[in-house]
Structures are given as C-alpha cells and as structure tokens.
C-alpha cells in the first residue's frame, strides 16, 4: 500500500491552451487523473457576463472541444478528469459534458459539479459586504471565493469520474485527488504543503516542461512545437517525480522546475492557499534521468481562516490606436505623431481618466531604459481609459486621422476598444462560503 503511486497529469495551463498534449497524456500516460486549469482571474467575470445573457452558458468556451478530444481515451483508460472549466456555471458544464459523452457513445460516467464559490449576492448586500472593498456594489459583475481541495475530494468519494468546478485555488485541483487517494487528513499540513507544491509546479502545464524557458544560445529547448505536458508520479508520503511522455518535445530539468517553483510566488516560505500555508523555502530537486526530476522538501502550516475572493467589476473602457513609421527620421516623425494626437485629444476635450503614449520598439515595454537605440522602424501606440464606449472609440479614430493629417510616411493604422472588467481582491470568513456538489450520472 505504501508503495502505491498516483499518476496525475496537467492537460491545460490556461483556457486557450493546446489540446493535443492532453490527448497524448490521456492515451499514453497511464494516468489516474488529468487536470485542466483553465480559469484566469478575469475569466470567471467574463463567464458570468455570458451566463447573464444565457443561463445555459457561463462555462469555459473550449469545454466541448476539449471534452470531445479527451473523453474517449480518458474513459478507455480509466482516467478521471478534474477541471475548473465549470467557470461561472459548473452545472451547465456537467450537462454539456454529459451530452458530449452521449454523442461519443460513452456511458457509465458520473459527473460532479462543485459550486458555492459564487458569493456575488453576499458581496452586493450592504449588510454582508466586507468593509474597505474597492468597487461599489452596483459595479460588481461577479464575486467568487477560492474554494480548496475539500469539495473535490468529496465529489470523488461520491464516485465522480469527472469533477467540474468554478473558482478553486489552482493547486487545490491537484491536492483534492491526492488527498482522496491517500486518505490524508485535512490537517496534515506537511503532506498538503507537498501536494500544493506538486499542484503549483504542474498547474501551468507546459511551463514545467520547457515552455516559456527557451533563450537561444543560453537555454536551448528542443521540439517546442511538439511540447509535451507534465505529469507527476506521487507517493503516499507526498514525494513525487515530475516528467513528461517519451517522444514529446520540451525538457524537464532542475532549471525548469526552479523557474516554475518561484513563478507568481511572493514569499516562498508562505504560499497561501485555502488548504494550507505551504513552505517552498526548503524544496529540493534532483535530476533522476532524462526529463525526470524528483521533488521533495515542501512543508506547511495551518490553513488561513479567511478565504480570498476575486471580485470582477466594471471599470470603464480602453481605446487604443497604433501606427508605424520607418526609415531615417522614423523616431522623430513618430514622436511628432504622438504630440499631435495628444494635442488633438485635448482640443476635442476627450474625458480621459488615464492615458499612455508609447513608441513600440523603443520604450513601450521597458520605459525609456534603452531609448538611445535607433530602430529601423517604430510604432506609435496611444491608449486611454474612458467612461464611455463612444469616448474610447475616438482615441483610435484620432490615430487613424494621422494618415491625412499627421507626419509623412505613417502606415498600418489599427484601432481597438474594449470594455474593462477589472479584478479586486478581498477576504471573507471561511464559514460564509458553503461548497455544494451536484451529481449527474449517465
């Protein structure tokens, strides 16, 4: 029993991620679990908006495509699926997944929806809203508490083959099945810390296997166009080996693991999730062979009493225009173009809350750090925040007007506008958030 190893893979690191590596893992990975992490901070607010327009929507836009691709191999090989593709509507995601399974001729599946993260009503109500919260209640689109591993473990206890959640802390998608398989106590902080480390390393999929790592001549990675996604072989004590499938592109090394260990981490000794305050400060990595790295040494302390809440809120509009200049004098003509647009926006008294005037190729990313460099071409970028869509549209229009009203030789004008759904964070007491599990069997 103590030698038992659970194989858990990651099939997506964001909602638009490539699908073939997940199919490959489902077919050849001898996996017990395949996890898809598809819910960025803002995604759930956008999903909530689509649910408000149609109560049957609000789940991940690629849900049907992903499920259609992976379900045959997952069912044939007994691979259970855990994902936050439920987004703002886990129950509808379960129904759509059941429809996909039926259309593929698959049966005998139990699909669980984990809900209870949506606390929008609680946050809008004046008597229960936390004090000091930034957006006014009428601007709030969504408010979702980060659930932990508990409801995923409970859904597996109820026999689920597929668990679809809304907002759950990303590592908890991995901690849930490991806790279920090894019957860990929810107060076993060391093992939960180690499982959180495994989840944290895997949750961005290709970022552990050589994606987002290559720097030609310094850090070379082979076969990025065929990048394989990671899996972990986890023991009952929480020790693990991370690897990828033979024949796939990419690289699993101590260096790729270290980069991902610190990715989006603040204090490495206090990585806070709803399950545990994990301590990554004494983690060690050991290369065991090609694309095989042993990870151990994470610790943990008691989980926090409050849960983090992401609040999506309306924050006006952003309008943008761009145009290119090339050849000798390009930078001077581009600077003149920016001056003209800035003056135009003042003359038409456009109510801008905030604006930026960038020279792409010169200072748009680094500030004026490298501004002594003379590029062969440069692109102006004017961007501003407005209260209305109409005002946002006028920014790009003023840039386009440079064609006939601006400096010589400008080309390739583009313009765009978008509604801004911003995210603020707050905390709520844990007891205010009650997870629910809804089961669909077919």
């Amino acid at each position: 029993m103590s030698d038992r190893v659970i194989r858990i893979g990651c099939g997506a690191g964001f909602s638009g991620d490539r699908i073939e590596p997940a199919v490959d893992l489902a077919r050849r990975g001898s996996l017990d679990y395949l996890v898809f992490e598809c819910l960025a901070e803002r995604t759930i607010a956008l999903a909530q908006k689509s649910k408000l327009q149609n109560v049957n929507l609000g789940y991940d836009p690629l849900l049907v495509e992903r499920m259609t691709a992976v379900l045959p191999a997952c069912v044939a090989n007994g691979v259970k699926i855990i994902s936050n593709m439920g987004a703002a509507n886990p129950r509808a995601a379960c129904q759509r997944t059941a429809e996909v399974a039926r259309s593929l001729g698959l049966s005998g599946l139990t699909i669980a929806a984990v809900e209870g993260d949506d606390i929008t009503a609680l946050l809008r109500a004046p008597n229960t809203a936390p004090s000091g919260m930034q957006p006014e209640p009428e601007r709030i689109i969504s408010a979702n508490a980060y659930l932990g591993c508990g409801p995923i473990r409970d859904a597996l206890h109820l026999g689920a083959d597929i668990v679809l959640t809304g907002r759950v802390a990303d590592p908890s998608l991995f901690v849930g099945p490991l806790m279920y398989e090894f019957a860990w106590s929810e107060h076993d902080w060391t093992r939960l810390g180690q499982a959180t480390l495994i989840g944290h390393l895997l949750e961005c999929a290709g970022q552990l296997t050589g994606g987002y790592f290559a720097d030609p001549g310094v850090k070379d990675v082979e076969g990025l166009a065929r990048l394989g996604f990671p899996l972990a072989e986890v023991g009952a004590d929480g020790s693990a080996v991370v690897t990828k499938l033979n024949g796939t592109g990419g690289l699993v090394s101590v260096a790729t693991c270290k980069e991902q260990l610190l990715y989006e981490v603040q204090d490495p000794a206090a990585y806070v999730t709803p399950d545990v305050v994990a301590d990554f400060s004494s983690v060690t990595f050991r290369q065991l062979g090609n694309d095989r790295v042993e990870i151990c040494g994470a610790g943990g302390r008691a989980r926090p009493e409050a849960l983090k809440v992401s609040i999506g809120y309306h924050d006006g509009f952003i309008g943008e225009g761009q145009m290119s200049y090339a050849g000798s004098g390009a930078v001077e003509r581009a600077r003149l173009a920016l001056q003209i647009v800035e003056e135009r926006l003042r003359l038409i008294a456009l109510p801008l809350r905030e604006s930026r005037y960038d020279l792409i190729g010169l200072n748009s990313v680094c500030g004026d750090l490298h501004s002594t460099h003379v590029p062969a071409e440069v692109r102006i970028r004017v961007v501003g925040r407005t209260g209305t869509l109409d005002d946002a549209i006028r920014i790009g229009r003023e840039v386009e007007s440079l064609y006939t009203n601006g400096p010589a030789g400008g080309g390739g004008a583009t313009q765009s506008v978008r509604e801004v759904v911003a995210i603020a964070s707050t905390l709520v007491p844990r007891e205010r958030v009650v997870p629910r599990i809804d089961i669909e069997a077919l």
Partner: protein
Amino acid sequence: MKLRQLAHCRTGDKGDNSNVSVIVYHSQDYLLIEQHLTTERIRAHLHGRVRGEVTRYCLPALGAINFVLHDALTGGVTRSLALDPHGKCISGIILDLELPVP
C-alpha cells in the same frame, strides 16, 4: 559581464505586484548575485517602474533569489494600459544587469 551569463529569470504577476526569480546556473555563482543584486540595484535598474517596495527573498539552497516588486504593474493585469500588462518582459531587462567579472 551581464547577469544573463550566470543566471536565468522568470517573471510572474499577482495583482499589482510583479515577482522576478533570478536563478544561477551554477551554485558557486550564488554568492556573487546575492552580493550585487540588492533591492536598491533592482529598483534603480527598472527606472522608476516600481512604485512600492522591492522585497528580496534569498534561497541559497536553490541558488535563487525571488524579488517582489510592489505596485509595479500600473494597476495590475486587468486594468493596466501597458502593452505588457503582466510585466512578463521584466525578466529580460533584469538579465541585462551588469556584474563585475569574478
């Protein structure tokens, strides 16, 4: 000598904070980067981009330092007007830091 010859980097974001890991290729180079990559040096190299504190977490056993740049993302990914709202490109800038040849 540029930091890029000794170390690699990855940038992440959390709200309006950016974090930059600096990881040496060879453990014997760790003390050099710990000595030279002070919070003041990082702040100055980023030319006013960091509006809040710079916090440094040293991980000698891993040969790594994690820098947290507070209030460095002009309001955070969801509302920033910047072309790179995540601040992902900061890692490339950090690797251009000049170090004395040991």
